[in-house]
């Protein structure tokens, strides 16, 4: 009876869904949007023992967070110590990072929960839980104070110094890359994975392990889509050298390199000629295969922050861009913004696409352990980072995740020319951001990019609008209308004349009086 009821309910649900879909199709909402809104991001739990500050492993938790974001994963982070019983059951994907060699995982709740855990678990570093060792039938050993070579896909890097590193002696599953000790004694896979469990012995920021991890992660997360590489310039201000930015856009356009700019938002004086020049340049950039992203504002203090202020300001800037025919497609921000409830809710909510830069100057407002996921998020890295690795092919293959080669825009023309030359020589195929699906919506505007087409409230964005030279004429101060201005002016002059005359007469009388006074004494003395 019960089973029949469930079947009936399911039948009704499916029927309802089909009906709604047909209706939506009829009224013209793109199918992709329906799909996007229904697809829930994967929610992963990221556990770590510590941030390893002051050691070579410092920063690897943050890098992992950025990597997971680039795969569109919603992350909840916690330390092993703070783990609460039953927590694993809430997630299908759990990652554990053990950074401290001398300490093992002591949280019994975690150890016991892992034994009965049905989802996927990836362990990184030392202190490998017995469940992982058993599942992968894995034996490991330690390498101490040695130089190793790591290879992954087309990349390899020699002379990576490791202090204490586990390596896989024996395991069952799919192997990824390789680790080779400097003297050639040890040769082991970089990582191993079976259906549920995976293990990577070494993960640090700044060397090939940072990149190698993305290969293991991609398969472990069941991501099938190949990543693409983009190019982005940040630090674009309204008072940057706008002419140089236009020149840069021209050069990249001529070289066939599509690019993005993460532009600083402006919240005041948006009607000034300076702002119009800024907008005109961004529009020009857009016409030269440039995509515009809104960079997060600088937050000076969170003491008296008000969410609505940030929301209104961000919304107004997006609207200013849209009203000028510029289609912003995402937000560029330091990664910690996505781990802050207020920034995520009031500053990032307009965008379904982002690029998360490494944290530089963290000013949390309302820190949270769970991240804001994005349908599209790029992994920011510098070209120097990639170029430090040896690679087999001349052409650099796309990385597993969507990534963005990131540069700071500077006012130095020589530097910018060098960058263009380097990019030309780099053999990287850069993708056009506009070919991805990105949506930005405010109350007044809905900006969509899909398959290279930019639309603003359903209308195609005109990319060939003529460039306008903006002059300097502008009424900065509104002269207040004065009543009887002429009359008061005359009155002022009359008073000035009267006062001057009075002073002169007063001075004259004073001199006469003084002379009379002196004369009186002189006369007395004479007498």
């Amino acid at each position, binding site marked *: 009876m019960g089973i029949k009821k469930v079947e009936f309910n399911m039948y009704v649900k499916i029927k309802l869904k089909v009906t709604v879909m047909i209706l939506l199709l009829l009224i013209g909402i793109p199918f992709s949007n329906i799909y996007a809104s229904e697809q829930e991001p994967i929610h992963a739990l990221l556990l770590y023992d510590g941030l390893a500050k002051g050691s070579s492993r410092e920063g690897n938790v943050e890098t992992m967070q950025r990597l997971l974001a680039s795969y569109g994963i919603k992350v909840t982070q916690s330390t092993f110590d703070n783990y609460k019983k039953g927590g694993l059951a809430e997630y299908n994907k759990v990652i554990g990072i053990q950074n401290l060699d001398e300490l093992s995982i002591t949280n019994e709740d975690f150890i016991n929960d892992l034994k009965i855990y049905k989802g996927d678990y990836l362990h990184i570093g030392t202190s490998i839980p017995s469940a992982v060792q058993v599942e992968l039938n894995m034996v490991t050993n330690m390498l101490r104070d040695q130089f190793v070579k790591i290879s992954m896909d087309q990349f390899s890097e020699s002379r990576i110094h490791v202090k204490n590193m586990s390596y896989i002696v024996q395991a069952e599953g799919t192997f990824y890359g390789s680790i080779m000790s400097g003297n050639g004694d040890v040769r082991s896979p970089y990582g191993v994975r079976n259906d549920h469990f995976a293990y990577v012995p070494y993960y640090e920021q700044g060397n090939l392990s940072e990149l190698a991890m993305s290969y293991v992660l991609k398969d472990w997360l069941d991501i099938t889509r190949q990543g693409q590489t983009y190019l982005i310039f940040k630090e674009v201000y309204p008072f940057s050298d*706008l002419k140089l930015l236009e020149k840069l856009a021209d050069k990249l356009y001529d070289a066939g390199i599509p690019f993005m700019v993460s532009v600083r*938002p402006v919240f*005041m004086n948006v009607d*000034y*000629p300076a702002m119009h020049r800024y907008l005109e340049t961004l529009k020009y950039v857009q016409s030269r295969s440039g995509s515009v992203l809104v960079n997060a504002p600088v937050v000076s*203090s969170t003491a008296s922050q008000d969410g609505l202020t940030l929301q209104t300001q961000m919304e107004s800037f997006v609207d200013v861009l849209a009203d000028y025919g510029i289609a912003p497609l995402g937000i560029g921000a330091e990664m910690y913004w996505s781990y802050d409830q207020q920034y995520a809710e009031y500053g990032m909510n307009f965008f379904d696409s982002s690029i998360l830069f490494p944290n530089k100057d963290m000013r949390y407002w309302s820190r949270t352990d769970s991240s804001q996921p994005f349908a599209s998020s790029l992994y920011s890295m510098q070209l120097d980072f990639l170029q430090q690795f040896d690679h087999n092919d001349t052409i650099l293959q796309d990385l597993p995740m969507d990534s963005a080669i990131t540069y700071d825009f500077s006012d130095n023309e020589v530097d910018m020319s060098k960058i263009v030359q380097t990019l030309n020589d780099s053999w990287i195929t850069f993708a056009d951001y506009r070919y991805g699906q990105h949506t930005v919506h405010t109350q007044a505007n809905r900006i969509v990019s899909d398959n290279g087409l930019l639309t603003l409230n359903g209308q195609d964005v005109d990319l060939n609008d003529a460039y306008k030279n903006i002059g300097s004429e502008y009424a*900065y101060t509104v002269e207040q209308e004065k009543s009887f201005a002429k009359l008061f002016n005359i009155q002022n002059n009359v008073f000035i004349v009267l006062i001057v005359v009075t002073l002169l007469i007063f001075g004259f009388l004073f001199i006469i009086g003084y002379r009379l006074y002196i004369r009186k004494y002189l006369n007395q003395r004479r007498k």
Partner: protein
Amino acid sequence: MSVSKVKLYIMNRFVLVSRFVSPALLAATCVLFITIMALFIPPYIGMADNGDYFRILYGNGLYFNTPDYDSQYFGYFIKHFGIFQYFNENSSDVISSQSLFIHFSVWMNKIFYDQQVFDIRFQAAMYTLLYTIAIYLLVESLTWKIPKKYGYPIAILAVLMFGDTGYTAYFNSFYGESVVIIMMVFMLASGLLLYRNRYNDYVLLAIFTLSGFLLTTSKQQNAPVGVIIAFICIILIFIRKQKTFRILMSSSLLILLLAGISTYALIPKEFVNINKYHAMTRGILMESKDPEVALSAFGIDKQYAILDKSIYYALNSTVDVNSEILEKNFYSQYGFGSILKYYFTNTGQAGKLFDLAAKSAFIIRPPAMGNYEKTVGHPAGEQTTFFSGYSLMKKALTPRTFGFIVIWMAVVVGLYIPSFIAALRAKNIRQAIRLPLVVTFILFGLSGILVSIIGAGDADLAKHVFLFTIAFDLVTFVFISDIIRRCLLRGDQEGGV
């Protein structure tokens, strides 16, 4: 009892009281009593943090230990702070004489109260004591050897003006203004006591130098104070003929000059940037008819016009005030000198800013900060009216324009000139120092306004022009007292003895 008998009785009592209670003692006691009532008896009066405490607090071994501290900014006065128990990694952001007072009060706090929690009232107690002494000396300098019928009104005037909680509430705060108030009073009092030839000259010289030094180094914007004293008070060297005195006095002035220069030189870069930012965005650009033209006068890209009227403290902004782009293309293009030159060539703009400054120059208590603790139950930002008659009256009645300041200066200086000339003619230098002292204090006030505008535009004017506020009150007090005691035009007979 007939009327004449009552009169006689009162007169007798008055004579009896005046034998034991001098006007100076009366004024000091009243100020002490009122300040104790305000600061040490519930509801305690103090000042809310406007975000500035952080700089001075953490560098001096204290920290915010109130859980919801952030929500009480501007709103409520907080009296308890934590004392760092272990190594304090916060290097002192601000080099200020205020640190000496904080360290001393923390030390007292540790002895008498608690090792871990600092009660700001220990600091208030120390300031109150110093202030009482300063008020005593000030009133003594004006009432010594003058008829009691003149002395007591002067004492009452002093209580009304300087017992005002607009001033004394600062003692329950970490603002540098507390030091400014006390040291200004000490400086003027010691200067006037030298003029009146009351007390030992060497002791007064020490008080004058020390208070001038602490005043100059209390806040970065007080850097010109040392320079002003050093130049205007050269005349003090000649009040005695002894070589020792002259050498000591010259050395004191030199120390004050160096203190002024070093205070300016030691301003942390971050403050330079914040103030430099405001000097342009809240000063030059704000009052300019065409910000792009104004920028071109400094050789700055006209695109920076977009920063017109912006403030560093804006919650969300386009650019970080310490960013490389501003360092390279904005701050490097102007400085104190070029801004001063700009205002000289654009007097209309300068006039507008002076008027703007004058609007805040007569407000003793900055309107932004609350005076009560949260537990008292008053709304956030509420200010006390307890013994605030003078500050309220001043705010309501003074014509708040720069024109008024000019007239005030002209009247004060003009009316002190006759006695100055007379003293010079009589070759009585001691009698001549009153005018330079008054001019010194007027210049303190003007430097307060000028430095605020050139240094930070109209940003935070109510607090920045505090130096003028106190200088105006001190000079006006001396001026009115001299009218009361009939010494305005002819000077004092006691001087130069």
